[in-house]
């Protein structure tokens, strides 16, 4: 009997209505998350990548019950989050925390940052009242700040310092999962490296599982154990990080990787993939949703949507062509 995963997501759907006109009549739906299943083990980091609008943030928010799915289940610590009564859900929230993209906008500007962090303890009624301030001071040290920083207001701190406090606020509840939604995108590269290293250290120390949502593939490669590539609501490829970056199988993953500009000047004239513009998410093509941008689509792709199928140990791809020969990236560059 194997240990059950920390997080198990089954058949998750999140639909948003598309409204139009003066009276807001519903004219369609966007399937932001369209049948996603995934698991996350204790202490594991799953990187979730994809273009803007692909549903990765919605997925991240839904798995920790910041919003309700239209269908599907989320088992977290063996509990079905969306079947729990409110008081028990609140208790579970302690174990699943969130780090936001822009630390400038996620703190109350009229509250000291120490008070904002302490509030997490107050809400969850953790520790005795008199011990909470000491716990805040401890966690500030842990994330590389001085305890005196507690008495500052958000506008007095830099973006990197605020993101450390964002991490402190999540960490102080001793969670087992943190969803990080683009946690370093708003930061400069030197500060980004500080925060990524901090997350790696804390992850080891606290046995944290991370769901790391990012559009930056190099950052994900640095931090993730496993990666899932999302395209308009579906996971189209998932593999251990090393394997995904070394031997991607899905044409979309290949295009994403080839599009990242290399720092190597010798590669400045490498062909760039021409994917064309992204589709209207309310009107995705039939069959495989990537087929109208795909360089190797066949008639079969228009008829049936490929399911995520294993091709190798821990490596699954949703593509009809993936079992076949490797697709050279040069085939993706147009003239």
């Amino acid at each position: 009997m194997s240990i059950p995963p920390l997080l198990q997501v089954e058949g998750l759907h999140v639909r948003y209505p598309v409204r139009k006109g003066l009276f807001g009549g519903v004219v369609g739906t966007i399937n932001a998350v369209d049948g996603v299943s995934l698991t996350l083990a204790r202490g594991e980091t799953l990187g979730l990548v994809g273009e803007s609008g692909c549903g990765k943030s919605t997925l991240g928010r839904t798995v920790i019950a910041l919003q309700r799915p239209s269908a599907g289940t989320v088992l977290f610590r063996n509990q079905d989050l969306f079947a729990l009564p409110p008081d028990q859900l609140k208790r579970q929230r302690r174990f699943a925390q969130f780090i936001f993209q822009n630390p400038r906008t996620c703190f109350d500007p009229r509250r000291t940052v120490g008070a904002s962090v302490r509030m997490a303890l107050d809400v969850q009624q953790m520790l005795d009242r008199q011990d909470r301030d000491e716990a805040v001071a401890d966690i500030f040290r842990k994330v590389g700040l001085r305890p005196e920083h507690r008495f500052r207001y958000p506008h007095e701190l830099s973006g990197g310092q605020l993101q450390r406090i964002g991490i402190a606020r999540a960490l102080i509840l001793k969670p087992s999962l943190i969803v990080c939604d683009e946690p370093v995108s708003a930061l400069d590269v030197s500060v980004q490296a500080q925060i990524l290293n901090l997350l790696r250290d804390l992850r080891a120390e606290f046995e944290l599982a991370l769901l790391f949502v990012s559009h930056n593939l190099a950052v994900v490669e640095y931090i993730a154990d496993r990666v899932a590539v999302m395209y308009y609501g579906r996971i189209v490829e998932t593999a251990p990080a090393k394997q995904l970056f070394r031997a991607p199988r899905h044409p979309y993953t290949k295009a994403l990787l080839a599009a990242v500009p290399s720092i190597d000047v010798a590669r400045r004239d490498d062909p760039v993939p021409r994917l064309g513009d992204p589709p209207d998410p309310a009107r995705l093509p039939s069959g495989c949703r990537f087929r109208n941008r795909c360089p190797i689509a066949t008639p079969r792709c228009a008829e049936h949507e490929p399911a995520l199928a294993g091709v190798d140990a821990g490596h699954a791809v949703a593509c009809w062509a993936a079992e076949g020969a490797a697709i050279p990236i040069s085939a993706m560059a147009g003239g």
Partner: protein
Amino acid sequence: MTTILPSPRHGPPLLEIRDLRTQFGFGPGTVNAVQGVDLRIAPGEIVGLVGESGSGKSVLALSILRLIQTPGRIAGGQILFDGRDVLAMSARDLGRWRGRDIGIIFQQPQGCLNPVRRIGWQVAEPLRQQERLTRRAAWDGAVSLLRSVGIPAPEEKALAYPHQLSGGQAQRVMIAIALALRPRLLIADEPTTALDVTIQAQILELLRDSCRHAGTSLLLVTHDLGVVARLADRVAVMYAGRIVEDGPVATMLDDPGHPYARGLLRAAPRLGQSGGERLQDIPGGIPDLSRAAPGCAFAPRCGRRASLALARCLEEMPPLATVRPDHRLRCWAAPDATGARS
């Protein structure tokens, strides 16, 4: 295929900036955002201007265009465009110069387009104003510009409003507007930062090809070294309002001399290289630009200074010294002439 063109160092530069200073605010709280920048851009040259937020790179770009608004002001220095003194231009000359010779591309294309005008008219506007074309001719010109920047079905798209465009299309429209009058200098401030990576690759290619074909110079302001590697002939790195190093792109991305430039290279995770190895961050943060400190602005964060225990770095600002004909470096600890090794 041409890759790295030799930097045309000889002959008169298109743009020459001398000791430019830009300040914001007054009194003791004055922020010295640009503190004496010297920079030349040759005709047809693509210069990448790299630095982190607060380094003054965007302020420098706006200063060149004289777009600094109160409480900011250009406090000193000279900007020469093709020998003409930009800071001495009358409002009328300035308007004509900006319209004719300069193209501008900003980070957020949607924020720069008029939401209630069809994009065709927005592209046609410079043609109408500066070239005095008729409405019909300007519209046709706009359609062919939209085609040249890769907008599909440009006749129909010209009728669209900005909200009907994707981010990538909107940036293409901005590029079309910027290139409408075949400017001699294009200034692009983080042109692809708001775009997805697949779109970014295509926009960068469009920018590079447009500049190469028309011989347009480009000042490319960015924090992304990958973007610089794809486009730039030369790279200038800014820190705390000053250029700390300036050299050919291959040198700057392979073996730069300044500790800050080296730190930036090591701090960025790279595809296919990371995993086990720990990223080397640059400890600390940027200095307060309203406080004049003696010495090198980077000294408090500098590992090289710490390991060499150099006192001079904290006492005296190093000059931007020419270490090779096309390579300038602002560091006391850098061995001269041969380029620095740390």
